């Protein structure tokens, strides 16, 4: 199956018309994935039982648009009976005994979990280079990173392995890899999607979202996974719209704000050229585009790394080698078991974040770091809400540069962190935000970021859809894959 030209809609038609069985589709998908994995390393675990799952769908009959459609799942989302590692040695053998709510919802809709995609360890990173299972490759250029942390999901979608994949986004982990791979990716509003069964990183920021080549496919999947869940008290009871059915590319009268701070000096000129071209397209469609200011953006990375690390240090206390995961050998007491299991099981980046967070929460530093960052977060949230009082959407580049080279930033954590400056704002303020392909810079994809009002995912989808229908970026085949077949 060549997913490059397929959508959920076209696959559903073939399944419903019995042109194709769910088993055939699943087998072809597995063959396609396995043929490319040597080069891409997009998956940590491929679901061997996927064809059996598809057989059950065939027996029941195709009913519903996701019925029989294979979808890839980021490996920090727990899946009953399928190994879930968060790309960490400390969970290298973890076999969940229940499934995340998002997976249950997908399976209830008939979707097939085709496998678990690679990520930065515990979703901490922007390149998949911190994965215990090796770096994924960018299908546009195998020497470049696919971004992260949802880099495996992005590479799987961009290379045509799957039509859609789930990701998670704490500081840009869906939007940055979407931008780097020339696909669409959306992080919904905080509270839109249940996080039950999602391995926690920073609980005031984490959100599950969707990645796909086409906007309409993410819209379809988000409608299925969103909604209240008794298992997650932060999940909202607001009704979930049918985002796909409501897609509307009419941009007449839509008010777009462009923060001048998004155009900071570190942003690559070719990235800005593509973003400006997209903004011009919106003007031609009847939208207004105006410059605004978010003066506190310059502190966003500082706020994020204090808060995300603090929450991570607390969330990751549970990994102690006692009940599951990696357990250190030859220890003389329980304290050694904790310390050795954690020190041998966590990679350097995770240790760095735990250390930063433990420091920020420690007695002498709490007020100056943790509390201070939480206060500056309030200031920043107010700046974002004020802009969204007068405008429908905030737009700008998704990333400062196109995908960087593997190894380029891995030894410089600070440079890696700065890479997140444009995506962090939506997480700090809990707003829905997406990246949609805007064009190419030196042969590598560039993403336009679209941020909406709380629970206004539809506005974000609509604007992304309008640009997609204008530039038809989905027709492009990733360069490194050309001539492969």
């Amino acid at each position: 199956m060549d997913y490059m030209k397929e959508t959920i809609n076209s696959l559903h038609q073939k399944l419903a018309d019995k042109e194709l069985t769910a088993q055939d589709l699943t087998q072809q998908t597995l063959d396609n994935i396995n043929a490319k994995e040597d080069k891409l390393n997009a998956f940590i675990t491929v679901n061997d039982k996927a064809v059996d799952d598809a057989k059950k769908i065939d027996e029941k009959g195709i009913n519903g648009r996701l019925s029989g459609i294979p979808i890839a799942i980021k490996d920090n989302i727990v899946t009953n009976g399928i190994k879930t590692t968060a790309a960490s040695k400390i969970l290298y053998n973890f076999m969940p005994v229940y499934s995340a709510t998002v997976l249950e919802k997908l399976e209830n809709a008939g979707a097939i979990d085709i496998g678990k995609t690679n990520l930065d360890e515990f979703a901490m990173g922007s390149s998949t280079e911190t994965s215990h299972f090796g770096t994924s490759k960018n299908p546009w250029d195998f020497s470049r990173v696919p971004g992260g942390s949802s880099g495996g999901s992005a590479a799987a979608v961009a290379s045509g392995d799957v039509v859609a994949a789930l990701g998670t986004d704490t500081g840009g982990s869906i939007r940055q890899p979407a931008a780097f791979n020339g696909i669409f990716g959306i992080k919904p509003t905080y509270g839109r999607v249940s996080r039950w069964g999602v391995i926690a990183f920073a609980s005031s920021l984490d959100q599950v979202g969707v990645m796909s080549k086409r906007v309409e496919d993410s819209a379809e999947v988000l409608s299925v996974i969103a909604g209240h869940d008794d298992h997650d008290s932060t999940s909202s009871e607001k009704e979930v719209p049918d985002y796909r059915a409501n897609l509307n590319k009419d941009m007449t009268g839509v008010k777009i704000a462009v923060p001048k701070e998004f155009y900071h000096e570190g942003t690559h000129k070719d990235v800005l050229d593509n973003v400006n071209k997209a903004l011009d397209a919106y003007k031609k469609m009847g939208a207004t585009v105006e410059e605004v200011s978010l003066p506190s953006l310059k502190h966003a990375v500082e706020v994020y790394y204090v808060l995300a690390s603090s929450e991570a240090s607390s969330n990751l206390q549970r990994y102690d080698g006692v009940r599951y995961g990696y357990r250190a050998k030859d220890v003389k007491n329980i304290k050694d078991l904790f310390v050795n299991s954690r020190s041998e099981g966590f990679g350097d980046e995770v240790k760095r974040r735990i250390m930063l967070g433990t420091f920020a929460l420690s007695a002498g530093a709490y007020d100056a770091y943790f509390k201070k960052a939480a206060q500056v977060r309030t200031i920043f949230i107010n700046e974002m809400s004020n802009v969204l009082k007068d405008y429908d959407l905030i737009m700008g580049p998704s990333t400062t540069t196109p995908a960087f080279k593997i190894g380029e930033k891995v030894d410089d954590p600070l440079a890696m962190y700065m890479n997140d400056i444009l995506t962090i704002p939506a997480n700090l303020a809990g707003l829905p935000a997406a990246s949609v392909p805007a064009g190419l810079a030196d042969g590598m994809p560039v993403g336009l970021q679209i941020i909406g009002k709380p629970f206004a995912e539809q506005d974000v989808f609509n604007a992304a859809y309008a640009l997609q229908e204008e530039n038809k970026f989905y027709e492009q085949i990733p360069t490194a894959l050309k001539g492969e077949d």
Partner: protein
Amino acid sequence: MISKDEILHVATLANLKFQPDEVDSFVDQLDKIVNMESKLSSVDTTGIEPTYNMGDTSTVFREDKGIHTQTREQMLENVPETDNNLIKVPTIVDKEDDE
């Protein structure tokens, strides 16, 4: 400036330890990052409430009734060492302490 002693103290709090040959590079990197984070001190936050949680944080109530989740066997499936259906761990009180 964050000192090596401070880093080692934080490592103890976090139940982590570092090999002698990796401590210095960790100290150096953490110092740079904490230095970046220290720029927050330039922001005037007088009278600003901190945001610790997002979304609707009101308490959720449900009926006080047991819900079936996992069985004992399932709960023990991932445990590295078990004995008699119990989780086995090394000694909790050091033997040396008794000697």
